[in-house]
């Protein structure tokens, strides 16, 4: 798919993303301190992550394995030999004065991740330059409102394992950038690599953006492209913010271009911070030496080698990524691609719930309908996770089974579902207490006969060929006994009339 400049938007927006995801480990990258979120400040620190003299880092095996899993899922090539480097800069949340990161020999490179548009077509195939493994810094807190002179430093986060994922500038709109991030998040959550919780800082996104503007009168369609200076946007705290910031920044660059005609030159990349409340990006002070990190190999860590056998093992442990799972689910349970997409996008646990339900019901489409119309809808209303959802698959399957058997119809089934959800009682109890006992065939026949005798006009109409007239009887029957199965009742009426 191409995005051509239009009259309304006479430029192409060029976007590349840099994503940091926290790996789902129990401990930090180089020490045994816990990575649990929300602990009191400086309670998860030790000599290593405080950068005290004489301490030495030792690599967390699980962090490395998760990083390799992420890279494989992103179709990256895993390097047979990788090492770590020191990235030197001074900041109070970085006690060592350097971050252990990867410079010239990252453990993986050259991957890709597609994003699908809302209609199900390929939106963009986004190339990944590299994925590397590094440690996070601590947290600095400054209460500007209180006007205090000090910045407080909490080093609980320092040393937390992060994967840095850098894309080529392959994205062409704020909308598809947001969709791509959603796909990345889903993928990493599926593979157990990261919970990607932005509120807890498990996923952070920076975006590089500029505009390509075809210059009219300089060769027409084949003419020169003007390229605006690249801006890096930081401080975006949700995917929605990313989309909004990119929309704002593209418009800002277009205005600036019209005013200044400034093009990308040898000027260094500008950094702008997103102000979510004001809905604008603002220039950040440029640190003149910021690009001079003086990387050199980390002498305290030995290199890591990865064999073909290691990669095969990592692949085997990986599980299905969402793209594969959508297809597999649609085929296995014979459900439409749309259904599979909705289910898979809700996460692995919901897919497990669905498969449990579908197995019990024995019919994928019926199970999928109940998932979408009842389980998902109420789950969205209530909030919480599918794991905490009080109506378990066996209960839903029980209700569906009774509907299939003809004990009651689907709408009555829905009422039972709602009551099971509200009361937390077993399905059988709810059915009994709601007076929903299956109507016996004998009861149904006598009810039928009674209504036929009372409605000679309807009987005559049906006999005259207007079968739809029988609908008038169903309403009356439901009034007398709400448990009457309408389909079954209608068929019985028609049979009796024919036998008259």
């Amino acid at each position: 798919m191409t995005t051509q400049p239009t009259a309304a938007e006479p430029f192409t927006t060029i976007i590349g993303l840099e994503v940091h995801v926290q790996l789902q480990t129990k401990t930090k990258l180089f020490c045994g301190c816990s990575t649990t979120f929300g602990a009191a400040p400086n309670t998860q620190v030790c000599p290593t992550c405080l950068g005290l003299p004489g301490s030495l880092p030792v690599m967390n095996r699980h962090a490395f394995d998760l990083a390799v899993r992420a890279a494989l899922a992103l179709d990256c090539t895993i390097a047979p030999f990788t090492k770590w480097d020191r990235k030197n800069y001074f900041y109070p949340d970085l006690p060592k004065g350097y971050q252990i990161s990867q410079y010239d020999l990252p453990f993986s490179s050259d991957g890709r991740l597609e994003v699908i548009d809302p209609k199900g077509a390929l939106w963009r195939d986004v190339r990944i330059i590299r994925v590397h493994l590094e440690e996070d810094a601590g947290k600095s807190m400054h209460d500007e409102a209180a006007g205090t002179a000090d910045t407080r430093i909490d080093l609980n986060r320092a040393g937390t394992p992060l994967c840095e994922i850098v894309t080529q500038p392959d994205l062409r709109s704020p909308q598809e950038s947001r969709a791509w991030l959603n796909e990345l998040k889903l993928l990493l959550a599926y593979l157990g690599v990261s919970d990607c919780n932005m509120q807890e800082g498990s996923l952070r996104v920076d975006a590089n953006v500029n505009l390509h503007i075809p210059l009219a009168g300089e060769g027409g369609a084949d003419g020169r492209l003007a390229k605006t200076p690249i801006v890096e946007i930081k401080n975006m705290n949700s995917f929605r913010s990313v989309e909004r910031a990119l929309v704002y920044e593209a418009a800002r660059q277009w205005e600036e271009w019209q005013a200044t005609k400034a093009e990308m030159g040898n000027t260094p990349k500008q950094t702008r911070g997103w102000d979510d409340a004001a809905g604008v990006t603002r220039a950040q002070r440029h640190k003149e030496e910021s690009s001079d990190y003086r990387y050199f190999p980390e002498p305290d860590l030995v290199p890591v080698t990865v064999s073909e056998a290691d990669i095969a093992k990592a692949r085997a442990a990986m599980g299905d990524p969402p793209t594969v799972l959508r297809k597999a689910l649609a085929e296995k349970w014979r459900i439409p691609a749309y259904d599979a997409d909705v289910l898979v996008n809700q996460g692995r646990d919901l897919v497990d719930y669905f498969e449990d339900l579908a197995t019990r019901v024995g019919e994928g489409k019926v199970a999928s309908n109940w998932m979408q119309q009842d389980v998902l809808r109420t789950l969205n209303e209530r909030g919480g996770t599918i794991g905490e959802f009080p109506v378990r698959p066996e209960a839903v399957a029980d209700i569906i089974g009774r509907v299939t058997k003809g004990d009651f119809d689907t709408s009555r089934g829905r009422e039972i579902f709602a009551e099971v959800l509200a009361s937390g009682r077993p399905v059988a109890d709810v059915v009994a207490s709601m007076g929903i006992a299956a109507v016996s065939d004998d009861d149904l026949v006598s009810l039928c006969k009674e209504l036929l005798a009372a409605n000679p006009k309807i009987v005559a109409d049906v006999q005259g060929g207007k079968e739809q007239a029988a609908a008038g009887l169903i309403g009356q029957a439901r009034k007398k006994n709400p448990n009457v199965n309408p389909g079954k009742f209608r068929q019985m009426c028609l049979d009796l009339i024919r036998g008259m």
Partner: protein
Amino acid sequence: MALSRQDVAKVGLLARLALSSDDLDRMTGELSKIVGLVSQLEEIDTSAVAPLAHPLDTQNVFRDDVPAPSLTTAEALQSSPRHDGSCFLVPAVLGDSGAA
């Protein structure tokens, strides 16, 4: 190889060292000598030698992802010039973290 005074001033800034004009003069001379000494290595042809990532011939040293005890907050803060009992206190830092 001679370093310029400007080179030394930049290295000083990166290392957060406040170098006086006299310091700069002296260090430009001293650092040039050191760099000159090391640059003798450039006389050796290393085109057939693979870059050395680490002097030890050891690889793949890992630990398991098992929590170990951390320090208490009091222990963690004890060597800090200033703290408030839960956080390290440093002079006000405004703007974005240098982390990337």
